[in-house]
């Protein structure tokens, strides 16, 4: 699958988690441009600067958590495609993320198939 010209913002305070997610995308698609953020504040800043096609974002992060960043990005762009990837998969957290406009919620550890389905459905037809 070719997703050249697609920008993917990966926001997680763990460098390993970012690498694993980017590796998962690269296994199923080629050509993506990645932007990496390590906290919620960077997620908001990079989103405004780079206007990515999709955002994968953790919740538990320093400075500004993923929930706050999600709300700010959606306020800036209510069409933003944001996927939450978190180890904190409580029902309450899930409802909160969906209410704030997250398009999907993946609980860590993610399966490569979950990333594949999202990339195909969100970027494949564009």
């Amino acid at each position, binding site marked *: 699958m070719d997703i050249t010209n697609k920008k993917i913002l990966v926001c997680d305070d763990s460098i390993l988690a970012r690498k694993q997610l980017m590796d998962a995308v690269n296994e199923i698609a080629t050509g993506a441009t990645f932007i990496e953020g390590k906290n919620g504040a960077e997620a908001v800043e990079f989103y405004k600067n780079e206007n990515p096609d999709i955002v994968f974002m953790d919740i538990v992060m320093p400075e500004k958590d993923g929930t706050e960043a999600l709300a700010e990005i959606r306020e800036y762009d209510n069409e933003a495609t944001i996927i939450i990837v978190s180890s*904190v998969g*409580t029902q*309450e957290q899930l409802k909160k993320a969906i209410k704030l406009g997250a398009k999907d919620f993946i609980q860590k550890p993610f399966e490569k198939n979950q990333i594949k389905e999202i990339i195909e459905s969100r970027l494949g037809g564009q």
Partner: protein
Amino acid sequence: MFTQFLGNYLLRKGIVNQDQLFTAMSKLSQSHIKLGTIAISEGLMTANEVDECLYVQTRENKRFGEIAVERGYLTDDQVSVLLSHQTPDYMLLGQILVDDGIFSYEELERIIFDYKNDSELYDLSLDIENQDAVQTILSKFFLIAEMQVTEHNIMYLELMFNSLIRFIGEDFTPLSPMVVDEFPITFGVSQAILGDREFISHIDCDRETAIAFASRYAKEDFTEFNEYTVAALEDFLNLHNGLYIVNVSNDTSKDIALEPPVVTEDGVLCGAEKCIVFPVAYPFGTVHLITCF
């Protein structure tokens, strides 16, 4: 998990030494036939259904059989039959030690009898689905450390052992826990759990052990201590604590949250009351899992 508990017992009683136990443990994964594998060979489940149950198992603190029944793939009776086909994992460890010439079958029989008495498991079968037996043994860990045995303490420890089995490997032995006022940090990561039951969780080990631990977690071959190895330890702790709060919130609907993990390179770890240290010995080194209240 009974294999790990039996390993602890064998070490504690001086029946085996660490080298003998690690050698036997390393052979265990090759000899282990999992319930899902038997279910496929019996034609009761498809490979996809087994994969699905194993995937759910990484997120929920449930037994394989329990998940398969919930999803309608197996009945309770079928799980019982499959379990009867499976050599209990702790017996497999015993058999490997017999094969290695550490003790005889006759001695193994006596060791298992003494082990069950020591663990107060008189009438409980030690199959992998037996939650009562797991909880009885886990309670003993807290009693050894003179800690209060609460439902949440047991849940946290059970999840910790399950997380180690699933994400690092089953070839570990929990050593005897200790209660301390403070713990001198070698290297580690800490994460605070916020809510009604606030506490600090911490993983501590030397750098060489951290590299091996991180390699297993990330399924990478790290050769040096760097930001990826540190991140792997943070991710493991974050994942384990995430599973814990999902389970607590499912049980109690209480509001509970995690702070981001932080790296601690030196100093002393202490809680408002006390810290409980659970040392876990892997062939590559000992990891200390600590909770401070």
